[in-house]
């Protein structure tokens, strides 16, 4: 067995946290709170380590003897500028916040707009590239739900039977979403049990 000590610690802590959910004992709750505090600190430090690692990677790419990556230089420059403004002005300064809102929000919003156009073009050429049943189903479902989301069918008074059909069609995504959530929940439970039982030891390297 690799890393038996780490495994033992992981199992012990997992059992302790699990008991804290089911047994309302102050001691266990205190220990659970303490361990969760440590986990938050470790997670915050991991974010800082991730930021440092990101800068070093781009630094290596920018300082490589060959194939200089100019985008890495821009990343490092933007990081240093933002870090300097944030340290200098603070995160609650309107000017510092305007820098983020004037750069990041339009950029990401533009990407979402391009995505919308690309999806539209893909839907247009779907039957040209992939001919088949699934392509046809995908195309029809997209058209239906676009029409439903547009509010055309819900705005008009189509009568009771037809309205019920629209409600039925509108619940289909809800059913699928519940299935996805149930799958995620079962997967998370299984992963937790495997860690508790020692079957999975992602911490052992």
């Amino acid at each position: 067995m690799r890393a038996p000590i780490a495994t033992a610690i992981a199992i012990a802590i997992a059992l302790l946290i699990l008991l804290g959910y089911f047994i309302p004992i102050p001691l266990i709750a205190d220990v659970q709170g303490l361990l969760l505090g440590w986990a938050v600190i470790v997670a915050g430090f991991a974010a800082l380590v991730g930021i440092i690692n990101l800068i070093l990677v781009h630094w290596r790419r920018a300082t490589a003897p060959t194939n200089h990556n100019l985008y890495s230089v821009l990343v490092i420059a933007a990081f240093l500028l933002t870090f300097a403004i944030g340290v200098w002005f603070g995160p609650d300064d309107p000017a510092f916040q305007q820098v983020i809102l004037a750069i990041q929000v339009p950029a990401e919003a533009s990407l979402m707009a391009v995505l919308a156009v690309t999806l539209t073009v893909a839907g247009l050429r779907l039957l040209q590239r992939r001919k088949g049943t699934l392509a046809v189903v995908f195309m029809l479902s997209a058209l239906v739900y676009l029409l439903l989301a547009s509010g055309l069918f819900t705005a008009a008074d189509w009568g009771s039977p037809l309205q019920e059909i629209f409600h039925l069609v509108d619940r289909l995504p809800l059913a699928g979403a519940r299935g996805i959530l149930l799958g995620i929940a079962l997967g998370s439970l299984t992963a937790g049990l495997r860690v508790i039982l020692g079957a999975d030891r992602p911490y052992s390297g």
Partner: protein
Amino acid sequence: MADLRCPMCGKNNPPQAETCQYCQARLKSVTPSPSEGGGEADWLRDLRDDGVLGEQPQAPATPAPFSGQEPTPGSIPEGEMPDWLSRIRQRTSVEEDALSQIGSAPKIEEDLTTAGEEVPDWLRDLPLDGSDSSSIPAWMQDVRPTTEESTAPTTFSQPAIEPEQPVAPATDGNDAWLQSLGAWDGQPQADEALPSQDFTSLPVEEPSLAEALPAEETPDWLKSLEAETTSAPASAAQDDQDWIKALEALSAETPSTIENTIQDIPPATPVENEHPSGLTDFLHTLEEPPSAPAEEPSLPVEASQAPSIISDWPVSAEQAAPPSTPPLDHIPSAGVTEWLDALEKAETTPEKAPEGAPTSDWLKDIDAFSAPPAEPPAPRESAIASDDSGPDWLRDFGNISPPLETPLPGQTNEAVPDWLTAFGSEDTAEELPVESAPSETRDILPAESLPEWLRAIEPQQPAPGTPAFAGSDEGKTVGPFSEEETSTWISSSEPLPAETEAYELPAFTVETEEGAIEQAHPLAEGEQLPDWIAAEPSTAVESSEENGEGIEQAQLPTWLQAMRPLEAAVQSRATSLDEERIEKSGPLAGMSGVLPGEEAVTQYRKPPIYSARLRVSDKQQVLANLLETVVAEETMTQPLQAEPNQAPQVIIRLLVGVVLIAALILSLLVKPFIGLPKGQTAVGSAANQVFKQIEELPASAPVLVVVDYEAGLSGEMKTAALPVIQHLMTRKARLVMVSTQPVGVVLAEDLLKDAATPDRGSAITFSVPQSSANLGYLVGGAFSLRELAAPMDASHPRPLQSALPAPLRADGGWDGLVLKSLSQITDFKRVILLTDSIESGRNWLEQVQPALAKKVPLLVVSSAQAAPLLQPFQSSGQVNAMLSGLVGGRAYEEITRRPAAASAYWNAYQVGLGIALLLILLGGILMSLSALFNRSKKQNQAKG
């Protein structure tokens, strides 16, 4: 008889085979082992069985051979007579009867024998004076006068024997003859009390055979013999076998003796000293040493290691005797058989022989006719010359006794036959050393040509006390000269020609040269041999030439055949095998005896080559091809249809983009012309529920607003959340902003600012810094939410402060107006979650919602993308109300009756969705038509 099994190759061979027919290995050992019984003839075993040997040990208790007078046969009482002698007498009587039946047997006067019944019949019947020559065979009659005439002028130059040498008196005793043999070695019998077997002891100083003979001249058989003789034990415990071994060695030494005898023959010149007694040469040779110089090498066989009988062999002893060796006359003739003793005495100095010497009667007879000296000046000559009393044939033997030295000058070889002259000339002219005699003799005398009596000696090794010439293989020994032995050597003297009468050789000597026998001894015309004699010579002579033609082939004893020269065996072997094969090709061409390799090569052939191909039938081949095709199709990838060109794609993309952008811009510019669906604003709708939850908030109620959405979706989220935030501001709620996203903090500030801006539909004045707080970025994801939602207790009086100790923006901090009353999560009156992702919404619903415990309503404003996944939580009651997307914002504005950004974007949103729907539908239709057109075109091409 069982087959002989070859010890080398293990194959069976005929019982008479000497060598293996397959590997040519010797099948029979050179020296018979005692266990085989070969060392003892049957007659010897019979004698042993009769107790002769056992009763007559060679212990000192045995009567000394020289101690007393030799008892005459007549004087021996019947009770004291040994068995062997009794048997001999009995057999002689039988032979006498047989001869009498023949009728032509020679008659011998009985008055010449003192005791006729004791003398062998053949000797007894021999006429001593020739008075009754009619009864003597013609050949004998021819021999006698010839011998007398030829021996008269012959002189022997034999100085070795001095007349005055005393002859030891023979003693009576049953084994006296053997003891006399022991005395032949030239050693004085110092101790008479010694056992007779001690005659094997020879002077140590005598050089051995190996020393006497050069290595290159020593034949192999002699070497082997030497080895055997050297290994012969001399201990007294093996005395019983010594005499047997000695006799074997004697037989091995016989050739040398024969040669010595031949050498003794005067080449072609008359001898100076004629043998006085007229003994046969072989007896003379036995008795007297040759006149070889004293410095000549001695006996080839080392005396100390050789069998005693060899050392006792007179000739060998005399040849090997150093100068200090006493003459033969001084040697006591102990152990010599009486008849031999008599011969000895008659040969040497008969006048000095004591009268009444203990000799056998029949030998006495011989002695009687040979002993009287005729010519005093030359005792030997006179003895020979006056040898009228002896039988003619015996006198012939005496006459032909060869000189031991070179003949006198001036002597001629007129009377000597050619074959005999060759012998003498070779021996005398070359002056060969004595050491080479044995080997030469072996070469000259092959084993087949040995006299039978000599060959018979070896297999019939006599036991002590047994006469030397007595016995036969099958126990039919009747006398010293039985039919087989006697007739041979006698018959050998038969064919002597008339012109060579003077130099007739003993029979066994002549037999060495078969051709010479035929040429030198033709029978005179008109002479007829008696049947009993005539049968033998023809057999003896022809047996070597006509093998297996009704005549029994002469067979050498095993031990004697083993002692033959290797050349004889090798020669026969080489002729019988493929060793004569001569290699004709290759590097060994011209060499014989090469192992045949060509035959072996031709026997082998190239091994068959088996095909490694798998034999399959046609059906199997078809199935295999089918399987191969199926597998290949599975692994093949369908190539994508290549684009006709890139230009239409770019045009389409640009066209789609331009259409969408133009439509959205146009829809933004015009007033809303598309109404909101009635259901979105109806009672019980999502927007209505959210509105209701906010409307129920008390004044200055703390509301936790969680801003967890990305900057890219901030346009949709802000449009959906802004009416809700404006509603909260209307309700004078204390807004506490928090975010689990790094950018959420800034977006929260931007949301508050926009909500408080009157241009965005705000109807009241809301002081953001004083009425709101921004706790900042909550680090740690779900862990931080768990800590944030931790209930307050003694150890955690303010979990919210513990989770967010340093708010990003808060007037007065945790002790300010906004945050002063807030210690835990349940202190908030509402928790509004603004999220665009399922993950962040799930974390809040899983980690914080349980802590709310239905005391604090959780409201969710999500994007249209995440709404379907969060809607289940609303259905389960975990989310009190949820408002999603632009539609939800437009509906909430409709409820609040304050049109804001959602109403402005609603036309563009509806136009954009409509255009996208049309494009997808149009594209599907066009592509379907294109596919149908292409298919029909292909069908037409196929038909046409």
